[in-house]
């Protein structure tokens, strides 16, 4: 009996033994870096470092794979997972900050809003696995075409669908509609980041970061989120630019996904879910960043929906 009990206690320990903790720090200041994207390329997995800049990894079965670390304002670090055996701490180097030559000749005073969205017609959203295609992206970027060069990005408005039961008042109609589903307790909030990119002159896809500081947002079940960017002073050198949503694939944002047909499948999606603009455009303006840090057009809803439901306000 005693042996058996010992054995029972041993099981979780055996399992835990394989998990190793790694720390990611800045190369110069040795400052810890929380929220670094940690991707394992062939396994197609991506996680984030936690608030203390640690990530845990079970190397078994992944020894032949490649690790890719990426963080805003830092150079990407790519290394074989084998090498992790020798280290406990990983170091990221900061990118040299390029001064963007700005030519602001005419100061435009008028405020301009791009990509207006009729929220009443929103039907679809991105960020969730679908039955046919898993959503394995780190970022989704919306392309904007401004009227002139050298304008400043003043504000953003992001539309995000939220769980029905999270809306404040449940109407009678909703109640009837929701009856078949079981509700559990409310998740606390959603944390995500916003990235602003210049257009790459060769690929016309997102290029260099236009905002050096990290814009981290917290959504407490708001359908429309207004983001004031005045304090970041984001100036757009060219006419075109990108606003991207960066998913934080961590425990807070995880959302269980049940696919209930035949076999029950449990998958994990990460909040937020970003609404798609109901407008059908002539050109696809959404780009997605995969786990290998490569941008590609987000063609899932083509040819119907071509824009994310993100509105950008430009000013002088």
């Amino acid at each position, binding site marked *: 009996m005693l042996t058996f009990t010992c054995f029972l206690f041993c099981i979780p320990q055996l399992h835990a033994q394989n998990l190793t903790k790694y720390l990611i720090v800045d190369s110069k200041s040795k400052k810890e870096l929380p929220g670094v994207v940690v991707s394992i390329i062939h396994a197609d997995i991506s996680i984030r470092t936690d608030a203390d800049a640690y990530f845990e990894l079970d190397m078994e079965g992944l020894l032949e794979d490649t690790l890719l670390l990426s963080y805003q304002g830092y150079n990407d670090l790519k290394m074989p997972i084998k090498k992790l055996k020798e280290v406990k701490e990983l170091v990221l180097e900061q990118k040299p900050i390029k001064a963007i030559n700005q030519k602001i000749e005419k100061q435009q005073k008028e405020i301009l809003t791009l990509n207006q969205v009729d*929220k*009443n017609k*929103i*039907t*679809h*959203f991105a960020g*969730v696995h*679908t*039955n*046919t295609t898993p959503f394995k992206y780190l970022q989704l970027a919306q392309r904007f075409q401004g009227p002139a060069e050298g304008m400043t990005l003043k504000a953003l408005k992001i*539309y995000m*669908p*939220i*769980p*029905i*039961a*999270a*809306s404040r008042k449940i*109407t009678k*109609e*909703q109640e*009837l*509609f929701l*009856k*078949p*589903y*079981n*509700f*559990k*307790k*409310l*998740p606390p909030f959603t944390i995500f980041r916003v990235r602003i990119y210049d257009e790459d002159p060769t690929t016309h896809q997102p290029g260099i970061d236009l905002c050096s500081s990290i814009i981290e947002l917290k959504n407490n079940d708001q*359908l429309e989120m207004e983001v004031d960017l005045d304090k970041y002073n984001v100036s757009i050198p060219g006419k075109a630019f990108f606003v991207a949503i960066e998913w934080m694939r961590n425990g807070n944002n995880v*959302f*269980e*996904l*049940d*696919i*209930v*047909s*035949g076999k029950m*499948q449990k998958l994990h*999606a990460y909040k937020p*879910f970003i*609404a798609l603009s109901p407008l059908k455009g002539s050109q696809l303006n959404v780009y997605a960043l995969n786990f290998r840090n490569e941008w590609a057009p987000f063609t*899932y*809803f083509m040819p*119907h*929906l071509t824009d994310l439901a993100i509105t950008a306000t430009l000013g002088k």
Partner: protein
Amino acid sequence: MKSYSLQLLLLTSFLFIMPTLHAQKKIRGQIKNKTTQSSLSNVTLKWLKANIATQSNAKGFFELERSTKAEDTLFFNAIGYEMLKIPAVGFTNGQSVYLQESNVTLNEVIIAKKKQKQKTATLGRFNDAYADVITTGNHFINYNGPVNLKESYITAKLFNNKNKPSLLQSIKIERNSTFNVFTNKLHYESNISFKVHVYDVDTLNGGPGIELYPGGWLVDNPGDIKTIELNVGQHYILLRSEVFFIAIEWLPLPMNEHFVMDINRITAFYEPSILGYLHRDHRRGIPLWSLFKDTWEPTVLRNGGRYTDLAISATVKYE
């Protein structure tokens, strides 16, 4: 000397034989009008089996290679004359062929409206209010495509057609609304697409058989409307049997995806969301059939022990 004359004789006879040999490969003749005896030009003649054809010349003469096929038939055809067929055995080389003038004159065509009383009937009629009550109870009744749809999926509804034969006039499909979190309102998804099919009955198992309009109709972007009506009268779909089926095909397209977000889980459905209602008389047969990997199987949607059906109705025209 003797042998020489023999050789000459052989050669001479061979020379005389040659044209005869050659002539045997072709048939010749002349085509004439049977009554006036005048020659007929531009008459087409053809070996039916060998499929070789020619035309008679200005004086009615023709020359055509012999047919290589056994028991072939010569076929003569000219406008204004009756067609003539002569078997190869019956044709003597060099003979005249007589064609009879055809006496066909075009009759005056009178187009008149037939005085027929055509009746229409609506089959599988559903009660709106009745259906709405049911939808709230069980999400099965809100009959969407199956969750986790990877391939297209078809469910057919059975219709009893007492007035056979009849023509299918229109199909009505009642949709169920979905909830929009942005407007806090129920609405009907507008950008969706699905297919509608009509099947004859398979007499072996009583399920759907031959598709009466192959390929079906694609309903694309119906708009924010509850009832989708398809007018199919122009396709003249004849319903011969007492039972026929109308089916909905769910398509696994991104625009058809519909997610219901719970607090910490998401359930995916596929549009269209068809309204369900209860059968008052389910003894009339199995109402729904679904296509699973090329075989139709009866699908029973039960709600509290009662059979449910899809809100699809069909209007037929009969005499």
